[in-house]
């Protein structure tokens, strides 16, 4: 029994050990996760603790420097990574769940169902997302805040984050649905699908056993495009006053704040470089690991 578990474990971790880059990438992801979850608790600075000395450059006291309020950037990045990962993961989850499902179902049934499902996607595209976010926040924020306060009495700021994650997920799946549909349109006419249909396989079997594995590549790639897009959308909403509440921050809001450092008069570049570096590192690692996963699990000879 134990042996089998090890075997499974070995099989599952193989892609992560495959080559050096992938190992590094998975290491980065793991470290980022640990950093985001554990570091804020053991840092000597609280993420919202202000200090008399503003804009300290990176140095022994503040490893990555500090901002206008004298807040330590390192610990702020840790907290921000947590929120960004949460936002990105939710966007990815919804894209994966609704987006992929929508595209698969639409094209598999084809005809009228396909047409209407895709027109529905077109409709959602055109409805301005900022309006939806504003309305959701306006109508539900205080109610959710009251509920959440019962659950987490110490952190009353979570209502907006929760709703935001919900909304961002809700608008992140549309392009995924289109892309999956386009790909399935081509796949479903290929010999191996035709064959399995001829053999009398049911819709579910064809969708999930035959089509889905062949889509893993494009799904993973588009996920690696969705995650940063969702994270940046979140920062954009924050700039409009519809995002998370300060002093909370996400990598996106830190970068958006840091963007003002790109000016010809005085650049405090650490405020931009470190958050952007953190985001790029995490995204690169995600993409790399996604690639490796897909190499490991994708069926090789599909047309046979």
């Amino acid at each position, binding site marked *: 029994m134990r042996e089998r578990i090890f075997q499974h474990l070995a099989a599952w971790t193989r892609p992560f050990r495959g080559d050096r880059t992938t190992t590094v990438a998975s290491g980065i992801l793991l470290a980022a996760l640990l950093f985001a979850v554990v570091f804020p608790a053991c840092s000597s600075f609280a993420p919202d603790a202000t200090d008399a000395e503003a804009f300290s450059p990176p140095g022994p006291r503040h490893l990555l420097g500090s901002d206008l309020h004298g807040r330590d950037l390192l610990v702020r990045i840790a907290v921000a990574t947590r929120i960004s990962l949460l936002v990105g993961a939710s966007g990815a989850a919804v894209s994966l769940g609704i987006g992929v499902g929508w595209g698969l179902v639409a094209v598999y049934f084809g005809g009228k169902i396909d047409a209407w499902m895709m027109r529905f996607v077109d409709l959602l595209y*055109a*409805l301005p997302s900022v309006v939806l976010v*504003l309305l959701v926040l*306006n109508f539900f924020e205080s109610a959710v805040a009251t509920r959440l306060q019962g659950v987490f009495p110490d952190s009353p700021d979570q209502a907006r984050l929760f709703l935001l994650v919900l909304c961002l997920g809700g608008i992140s799946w549309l*392009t995924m649905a289109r892309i999956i549909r*386009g790909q399935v*349109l081509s796949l479903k006419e290929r010999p191996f699908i035709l064959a399995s249909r001829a053999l009398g396989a049911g819709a579910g079997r064809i969708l999930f056993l035959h089509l889905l594995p062949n889509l893993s590549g*494009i799904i993973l790639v*588009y996920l690696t495009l969705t995650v940063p897009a969702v994270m940046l959308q979140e920062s954009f909403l924050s700039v409009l006053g519809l995002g998370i509440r300060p002093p909370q921050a996400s990598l996106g809001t830190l970068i958006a704040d840091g*963007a003002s450092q790109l000016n010809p008069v005085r650049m405090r570049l650490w405020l931009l470089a470190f958050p952007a570096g953190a985001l790029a590192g995490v995204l690169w690692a995600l993409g790399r690991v996604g690639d490796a996963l897909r190499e490991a699990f994708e069926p090789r000879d599909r047309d046979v």
Partner: protein
Amino acid sequence: MNGILKRLALVPLLAWLVATGGFFLLRLAPGGPFDRDRAPASAEVEAALRAKYHLDEPLHRQYLRCLGGWVLGDFGPSLKYRNHTVNDILAQSLPVSGVLGLLAAGVAFGIGIPVGAWGALRRGRWPDRLASMLAVVGICIPSFILGPILVLVFGLQLAWLPPALWGSWENCILPVLALGLYFAARVSRLTREGMTDVLRSPFVRTARAKGLSPGAIVRRHALRGSLLPVAAYAGPMLADLLTGSFIVENLFQIPGTGVFFVNSFLNRDYPMMIALAVLYSVLLQALNLGSDLALRSLDPRVRHA
């Protein structure tokens, strides 16, 4: 052909749904177009202002009034820019955003597709690694970072190009790059994926076995099939590009349509918001139709496009 006609027939229907949905949803948002930080001179003045734009009528009357305008393609006066109609503003700004968007799309495809294809052909080797790295950088450097960097370097430091404003061809270059490179990164990822997919299929293997050069394989056979993901993505991407980008237009002070997508909402400029949603919807449907047709022409097996 029949399918295309059916799709075209749906365009006004969906546009109407978008306009109607927008009309009623917007009214739920707090605040109105004429709210300011200082109170109006009197309640009567405020009432007169609302009456001037028929905002005092019951909602269904307002809706019917707007509907009449929509049918004729008239979206009414802007509630924010009170000396202009919505059509007036769009007529000024759409050509600007259109040129900017087309050029950016050129950059996105012109750079993204070759780079992506190249990466797929050298999959796992250094060109691929480099292309992937650049793509990740491109994806996480949003235009609000890339734009200022370009301006600092080429606009101020080297002073080769104007840092902002619109009017001559020099003005186009920086905003087009700021807008296009982000999409180029995304297009390259999708092309690489599509190309990898195609290169593994049997007909390419056959072609290779026949001794065809890799370049010829790509040009003749692989490129078409590999563009499937890009084609599916092109519809929404072009719709986004052609209607303008808030960030780039704001940054380069370009009189385009993109800024209104955000500002009309912040200003509660209802007619402007509805016009933009309808415009976007019509454009998106047209482009998605085009992108679906492209899917069909790229892959003869696709039937239900």
